[in-house]
Structure formats: C-alpha cells, structure tokens
C-alpha cells in the first residue's frame, strides 16, 4: 500500500505549503463555529460536520438553511450544488497522480478544497506521482479546519471580530497569489480575464452557486478553442 510509504521530506514540504491555508482557515473556521453554535448546533455536531463534510462555504450555507427551517433534502441538495465545483478540481489533479492506487487516491481526494487545490495544483510539477506532499498539505489543512470550527463553536461569541486583524482577507489574498502563479502566458491571462468576467455576471444574474463551475467550464473550453486556433494559424 502506497499510503504507508510516506516520504518524510515531501510530507514536510506539504505541511509548509499548507501554512497560508492554515492562516485563512483559522479565522473562518472560528467564525463558522460561532455561527453554528448560535444556530443551535452542538459542539459535537460542528466537530463531526467539519470532520466528514470539510467544505467551508457549503457548511455556512447549511447552517443558514437550518436556521431558515429548510428540510434535510434541501440542505443536502444545496450542498451538492455548491460542492460540485470540486469535480473540475479533482479532474485536473488526475494527470499528476497517475500510477497511485484507487485507495490512495480516494483518501487524497477527500482533502480537495478550493484552497488546498490551489496550493496543490501550483506545486503539481514538483510532486508528480508522489502523494506524500498532498498528505502533508491535506492533513494539516483538515486538522486546522476541524480544530478551529470546534473551538469556535465551544467559545461561542467570545471570539473577537476577525476583521480586526484583516484575517477575513487572508483567503482572497491567497487566491490572488495562487492565480498570479498560474498566469504563465498571454493566453492564460485572457482566460483568467474571461473567467472573471463570466463569474461576476453569473454571480449577479444566476441564483444559487453555479457561477464558479459555469464560468470555469466555459472558459476552459474557450481556452482549448483559442489554443487550437493559434496552433493552426
């Protein structure tokens, strides 16, 4: 089993690479815990949700829907809708993780979040086929999420407003860094611009949380079309 042959150095690199994610998850996890406690969730329920769901935005939405008195099926359907974007992220990691067992991959894939994906794909060339980097990145990030949300729910409203330290901007700032790292040529810049434009339009005009997956699907396709066209002429 490849799972147990963890390369220490790669694992440590993964932990190090998780630090921006940790900085972002701490305040948001605390905030989620406080909100969930106010919505009536027990500390154990918050812990379990963060442990086995582990998807920030859908957890916030679920708590909001619970407060609004939505049915379990509504909440579960909304969760699927919000988290279906991970399909694209998981698919785009696949070429870098060929040769690993289905067991290894089914555990690694549990740790794919917007944030860990951004870090993982940015470092993809360096860990090609070796999952130890991802073990380090994913376990550190998941641990932080579980602990911060649980502490938040236990502490209730004691936690100060995260805006005081600018912590609410930690994740957007990290995504800026990750996006800039992906801008390798003119075409990727065009695709980033198009995706931004479409995502903003979809966010404003389409209800629900379809904007990420729609904008990404369309612009990745446009990217292939432009690239093919450029090679031909």
């Amino acid at each position: 089993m490849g799972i147990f042959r963890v390369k220490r150095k790669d694992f440590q690199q993964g932990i190090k690479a998780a630090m921006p994610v940790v900085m972002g998850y701490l305040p948001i996890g605390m905030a989620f815990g406080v909100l969930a406690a106010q919505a009536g969730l027990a500390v154990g329920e918050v812990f379990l949700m963060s442990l086995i769901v582990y998807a920030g935005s859908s957890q916030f939405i679920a708590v909001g829907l619970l407060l609004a008195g939505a049915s379990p099926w509504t909440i579960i359907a909304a969760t699927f809708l919000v988290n279906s974007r991970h399909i694209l992220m998981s698919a785009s990691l696949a070429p870098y993780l060929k040769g690993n067992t289905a067991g290894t991959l089914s555990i690694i894939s549990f740790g794919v979040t917007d944030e860990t994906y951004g870090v993982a794909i940015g470092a993809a060339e360096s860990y090609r086929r070796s999952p130890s980097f991802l073990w380090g990145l994913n376990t550190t990030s998941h641990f932080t999420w579980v602990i911060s949300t649980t502490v938040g729910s236990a502490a209730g409203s004691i936690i100060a407003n995260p805006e005081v330290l600018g912590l609410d901007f930690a994740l957007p700032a990290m995504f800026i860094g990750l996006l800039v790292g992906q801008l390798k040529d003119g075409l990727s810049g065009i695709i980033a611009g198009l995706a931004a434009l479409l995502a903003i339009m979809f966010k404003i005009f389409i209800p629900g949380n379809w904007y990420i997956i729609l904008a990404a699907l369309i612009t990745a396709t446009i990217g292939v079309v432009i690239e093919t066209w450029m090679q031909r002429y």
Partner: protein
Amino acid sequence: MDAKVLMIIVGMAAVTYFPRMLPLVVLSKMEIPPIVLRWLGFVPVAVLSSLLAPELLVTGQRFDVSLSNHYLLASLPCFLVAYKTKNLFYTVFTGMACLVILTRLWG
C-alpha cells in the same frame, strides 16, 4: 446528537465526497485524450479566477467598483506583491495589512 442533524451531516458528507473522489480515481486510471488534457490544463486558471473575481468585485448582488470596496482596494497591492515576489506569504500578509489600514484609517 440530534437525529435530523446527524442525517443532514452524513448526507452532506456523501454528496461532497463523491464529486471530489470520482474524477480523480477514474481519470487517473485512464489514458486521457490529449484534447481533454489540454482542457484540464486550463481548469486551474479558470477556477481560481472564477472563485476570486466575485469576491473582489461583487458586493451583495451588485458589481462594485468604488472606493468603499475595501477588498478591491486591498487586492491591488496584493497583485503587485504576488507578481513581484511570487511568494504566497508576502501576498497574504500584504493583503491583510492593507485591509487593516483601509478599515482603520479609511473607515
């Protein structure tokens, strides 16, 4: 633990896990056609930009390019630092520092 909440959590876990797991497990076992590989190559920049842009430019349900949009203002030095240093930590610290300055001094 409340049975309804437990059911919600387990249901959420299932519908969250499968979209994460299936593409990676299935695609890594296949010879992916070159055109699909090229398409997947555009996914990171497309996803990251789609995640980020509305955070910076949409407030509520409105397109917001104004001086009261602190996220947008703080993002400008962030982009510069990200471009110049290629360092995630410097970028995150710049963003946080700029936001603190904006909310404290700008109001």
